[in-house]
């Protein structure tokens, strides 16, 4: 959704029509687990910072394959959260457990395609153009 997200945000989220929820999928082992856990720890301090790092991680996907703890600490500091609090969260494993549980829930819901978008039980699968999102959202609008 990275390419069309700005348009969806401008036309539907920022106008108050739509709330966008991010649900982690851990399809690539530890690289997925650690990056989502890092984002979770950042978001624990600031939801705004979560969305900042969400956008940064999508924009720097290639770096995440080899990202280590230091990479995530620097990323956390870069979006302005407290380093010590981030490290405490990340090292505790609390966030790793939470995102693992969320990933398990989506598997139980039968969601295996990536990405998948859901509105009221209706699904849109795969990266789509804004026009498709617009149609999908408008079809679900009461």
């Amino acid at each position: 959704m990275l390419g069309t997200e700005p348009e969806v945000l401008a036309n539907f989220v920022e106008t108050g029509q739509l709330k966008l929820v991010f649900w982690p999928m851990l399809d690539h082992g530890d690289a997925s687990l650690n990056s989502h856990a890092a984002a979770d720890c950042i978001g624990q301090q600031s939801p705004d910072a979560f969305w900042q790092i969400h956008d940064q991680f999508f924009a720097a996907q290639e770096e995440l394959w080899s990202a280590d703890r230091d990479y995530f600490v620097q990323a956390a500091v870069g979006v302005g959260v407290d380093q010590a609090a981030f490290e405490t969260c990340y090292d505790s494993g609390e966030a790793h457990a939470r995102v693992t549980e969320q990933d398990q829930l989506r598997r139980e819901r039968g969601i295996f395609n990536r990405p998948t978008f859901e509105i009221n039980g209706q699904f849109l699968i795969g990266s789509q153009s804004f026009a498709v999102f617009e149609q999908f959202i408008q079809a679900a609008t009461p």
Partner: protein
Amino acid sequence: MTKSLLLILLLVLWLAACAPAATPPALPSLTTAPGQPAAAATISQPPPAGEVAAPTATQIAGGQTAAEPPLAPTEAPAAPPTEAPVEIVAVNGRHDDGTFFRGRADAPLTMTDYSDFL
């Protein structure tokens, strides 16, 4: 008889000599020099509130003034109607299940994005 006629004639002449002139002397007519406008009228009444006072005379070459017809009163331009801006409170937040959301918590629609950063 001749004496009476003479007295009447004298009386008439006397009355004619004493009577004031019947018509005033003719006044000189107002004339405007060729090429010169007439004097400008002045308006002492202030313009009503909300109207724009129109200039009544324009300075022209030679320090003379030329009368101009007063312009029609102009209403003060009304402020264009503006709609009250709709304030959208878009916030970022977190649900009890730990997921993060963008937008109004009470938005009529919720779209969940299941995705991996990688």
